[in-house]
């Protein structure tokens, strides 16, 4: 079972390899991320940033190597463990992955409803997270009527609503102008200060320079620093 994610090392990768049809995407990747840390994963496009995040979220399985998330060896997971594991991790996707036929409120509610939470608690949590992100007046809007930055924040709201132990974000500033991008990273920083382990994949050098955080640099699937 997934259980709770805990331990001093929140994310541990040991000699992880990932191949796609013989093409190597990650080669011998080993690192650890402590509980409560904020880490950037960086590198050029195609360096393997997204693959690394997807491995942490069990969207992919490593070809070789071990991945320990919050003390759980996820390569030993069975199919039924995956949903419960994912509920403890917030993932902000590059393309947001919002349901366009549902309102902002319903998009976030769905992530809570699947856990069996009752409607009153769901409403309270959503109002809290929406006002935290400055989206309370957008609750009844559908995603496609919102700007890119707003959709990004809805995606973050959905990830935060379930109060994850770990927050993963794949190129969260990719579609935003520099000012908005800084706002979003500030937001992640704030979330991190509240105790959540945050991992952000970005190719944006200026963001990394601006925030004084550890950065794992990937080059063609290998860690270089």
């Amino acid at each position, binding site marked *: 079972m997934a259980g709770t994610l805990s331990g001093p090392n929140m994310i541990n990768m040991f000699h992880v390899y990932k191949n796609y049809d013989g093409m190597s995407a990650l080669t011998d990747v080993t690192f650890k991320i402590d509980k409560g840390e904020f880490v950037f994963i960086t590198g050029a496009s195609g360096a393997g940033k997204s693959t690394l995040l997807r491995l942490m*979220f069990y*969207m992919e399985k490593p070809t070789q190597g071990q991945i320990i998330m919050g003390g759980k060896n996820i390569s030993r997971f069975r*199919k*039924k463990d995956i*949903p*419960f*594991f*994912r*509920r403890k991790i917030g*993932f902000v*996707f590059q393309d947001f*992955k*919002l*349901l366009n*036929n549902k309102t902002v409120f319903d998009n976030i509610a*769905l*992530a809570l*409803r*699947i*856990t*069996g939470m*009752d*409607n009153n608690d769901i409403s309270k949590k959503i109002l809290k997270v929406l006002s935290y992100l400055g989206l309370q007046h957008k609750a009844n809007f559908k995603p496609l009527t919102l700007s890119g930055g707003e959709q990004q924040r809805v995606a973050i709201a*959905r990830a935060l609503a*379930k109060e994850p132990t770990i927050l993963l974000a794949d190129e969260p500033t990719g579609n935003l102008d520099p000012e908005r991008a800084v706002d979003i990273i500030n937001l992640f920083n704030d979330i991190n200060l509240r105790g959540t382990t945050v991992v952000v994949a970005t190719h944006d050098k200026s963001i990394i320079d601006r925030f004084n955080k550890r950065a794992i640099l990937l080059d063609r699937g290998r860690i270089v620093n």
Partner: protein
Amino acid sequence: MNYFRWFAHFISESFQNIRSNLATSLVTIATIAISLAICGLFLGFFINLNNILSSIGKRIQVVAYLKDDLPQDTILNIRKEIAGMPEVEDSEYLSKEKAFSIFKEELKGQKGILDGLGINPFPASLEIRVKGLFRNPQGVKGLTSRLKMIGGIEDVQYGQEWVERFFVFIKFVEGFALIIGSFLLVATVFIVSNTIRLTLYSRREEIEILGLIGATNIFIKAPFFIEAILEGFLGAVISIGLLYMGRYFLMLKTPSAFAQFVDLPVFTIYFTSGLIATGVILGILGSSISLKKLAIR
């Protein structure tokens, strides 16, 4: 614990899904309705044909001719013995005199033929009707051979050739119906499961997102399952409507001699509930097949 809440969620999701994917839902419902109407038409004709055949089957009877000049109580004993046989539904005694007078009646205008005849050539007989279970060549043969062993019975006849041909025909009809019926059913399941798979395909993004936010397999699949059951039910109701209209127009154009065959049993309780059950089962089968193939990452 949360089962009721989840169930309520599934139901509301299913209705919401049908509404927001109205076009695909309508295609699925129409496919089920038309497939079921075709199956129902076939089944209806088969039921009617079966009814006609079984009413013909009721005419199967075995005639036991009695020896002349048997005393009344011997005849009575023979009748009692025959009534005790498991194959026998009932029997009717036809005396020599009665047989002769029926024959005379049938000759009508040509009574003159009988004028020279001084004696009554007809034997007394027992006309035995056979129970449904034994209305087949083996049953009738078995009964006949046992009747022949009873003392006082001269001869037994049962229109052997006719009975055998009739049963070959029934076997043929049943086999034909079974083959065509199973083809129809398999084709229908195939069509419905593919239509549902198209629905799933058009919503693969939604399914993917649900998996990514941590929904369990059951949580993802249940609304689709319920939706398919609802569509199966609606499709069945529409197919009953189609069959009713079909029956109406067929009856208008059909000469009364064939009416018994064409008069589809649309509104009998077995037929309607059978169609609705089939629709629901189609929904269950079709969605299970396509959901099984659905990979959730």
